[in-house]
């Protein structure tokens, strides 16, 4: 079995809105292994994005702990690179190349010449070589997302955190981005944690699926989806998995429609 990279023990997360103290997740346990495509799936309001933010170090659990390679996560760091849902995560004042170079420059993880080489290589991997001197405002949504992924991967983080990265894309672009992500994973075998509310996306992209129940988020199930991807999306196993997750999420009252 592959070694454990990230471990969450009894994580309870709360945040304040101007009027309420919201409990996002309650006593969540999970562990991500090296090379996992670990998907957190749940309906909106199950605290899945909040959970990912906690792994990113942007908030602290009120109870429990999250550890990466045995060290407790206290603050954001470049070992956990995050790809957000919004397109505005790129710096509009930097070109595609400079955007990809920026994290390597500020963290000084690579010497300058190596950083430039890596930036070039990773931009080529996401097929944006022709656009490397272009500013983000001239790119389409899908291209911006590819730059964000390239920027995160160039730094070679321990784990890549993706918060519904394809949710704002149109259906066709989303499909091709999912395929590209899987193709990249096949080449590089990085570890990725991926948040989504789409059952189909979870099965296609994920190798392990953590199903959360809503209000507050609690672990409902952890499933193995490593055998299912685009090549067998029309097979009965795929449909069965989809129905199983559907039943887990929506419980008995929807069983008739799911069956």
């Amino acid at each position, binding site marked *: 079995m592959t070694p454990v990279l990230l471990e969450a023990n009894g994580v309870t997360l709360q945040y304040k809105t101007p009027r309420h103290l919201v409990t996002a997740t309650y006593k969540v346990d999970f562990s991500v292994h090296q090379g996992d495509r670990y998907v957190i799936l749940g309906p909106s309001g199950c605290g899945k994005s909040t959970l990912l933010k906690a792994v*990113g170090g*942007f908030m602290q659990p009120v109870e429990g702990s999250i550890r990466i390679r045995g060290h407790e996560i206290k603050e*954001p*760091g*470049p070992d*956990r*690179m*995050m790809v*957000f849902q*919004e397109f*505005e*995560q790129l*710096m*509009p*004042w930097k070109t595609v190349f400079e955007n990809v170079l*920026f*994290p390597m420059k*500020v*963290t000084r993880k690579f010497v300058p010449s190596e950083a430039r080489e890596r930036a070039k290589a990773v931009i080529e991997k996401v097929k944006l070589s022709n656009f490397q001197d272009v*500013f*983000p*405002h*001239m790119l389409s949504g899908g291209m911006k997302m590819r730059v964000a992924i390239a920027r995160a991967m160039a*730094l070679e983080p321990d784990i890549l955190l993706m918060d519904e990265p394809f949710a704002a894309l149109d259906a066709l672009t989303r499909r091709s981005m999912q395929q590209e992500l899987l193709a990249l994973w096949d080449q590089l075998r990085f570890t990725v944690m991926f948040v989504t509310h789409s059952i189909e996306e979870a099965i296609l992209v994920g190798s392990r699926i953590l199903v959360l129940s809503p209000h507050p988020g609690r672990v409902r199930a952890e499933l193995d989806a490593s055998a299912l991807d685009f090549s067998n999306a029309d097979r009965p196993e795929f449909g069965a998995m989809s129905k199983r997750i559907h039943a887990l999420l929506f419980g008995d009252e929807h069983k008739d429609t799911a069956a």
Partner: protein
Amino acid sequence: MTVLHDMDSAQQRPEFEQQPSDASAIGDVERPLSLVERVFNNEGVQRLTILLVLIAAWELYARWLNNSLLFPTFTETVGTFWHDIRNGVLIDRTVTSLRTLAIGYAFGLALAALFTTFAVASETGTRILSTLTAMFNPLPAIALLPLALIWFGLGTPSLVFVIIHSVLWAVALNTLIGFRSVPETLRMSGRNVGLKGARYVGLILIPAAFPSILAGMKIGWAFAWRTLVAAELVFGVSSRSGGIGWYIFEARNDLDTATVFSGLLTVILIGLFVESVIFRAIEARTVNLWGMQR
């Protein structure tokens, strides 16, 4: 509303496929604009046309009025302007004004940077700065001039003080608004790579808020220039080497209206130059290039 129940009615419309129709009649799909079209689309040309129309109106009205004490013609004004430039008086006065302005503007910007950096560090800092800007931004700088004269005496320090006052709050307010409107995602992606403190402000917040900061700098510049000319008009008399306001004041005392006009013309020309050359160039290289402003 009619509801179609039978599927037959949907099938009555046949499907079809065809080759796209011949579009060659429209000529090139992308046609370069003609020279005349391009010239008139040029913003500089449009602005110049507006200026020429204004000048023509001025000249015609002044000639019709025929009273150079009340309203000298454009040619007369330009004649005086040229004369005073050649004998060096106007250049001297302008340089004096611009030197004072540059010192005040630079100090104002530096203070604004300092204040806003402290303000973004904490909630309390933000509150303090918003209260200060709310108090002092509406206060006309010129109203502080009597006070400044008591504190700093006659001369440049008093002028610099009022200029700083007019620049500081406008720039600080705009910068703070800019910092606050930086998208949360952009902030998080900055913190993600471990940026903190001054590096975070310098590498993420300032460039992300640059459109607002630049707008603040433009407003601050206009306030400073206005305040300076006004201050020189009121108290420049006592200053040994007067600026452009003093030049205007002197000419008015001599009832030399053409010279007053030439002083005003200088103020306008410098304003136009700073706005449409300096700030325009900064915009073209930054916010326009980055697509943060059209």
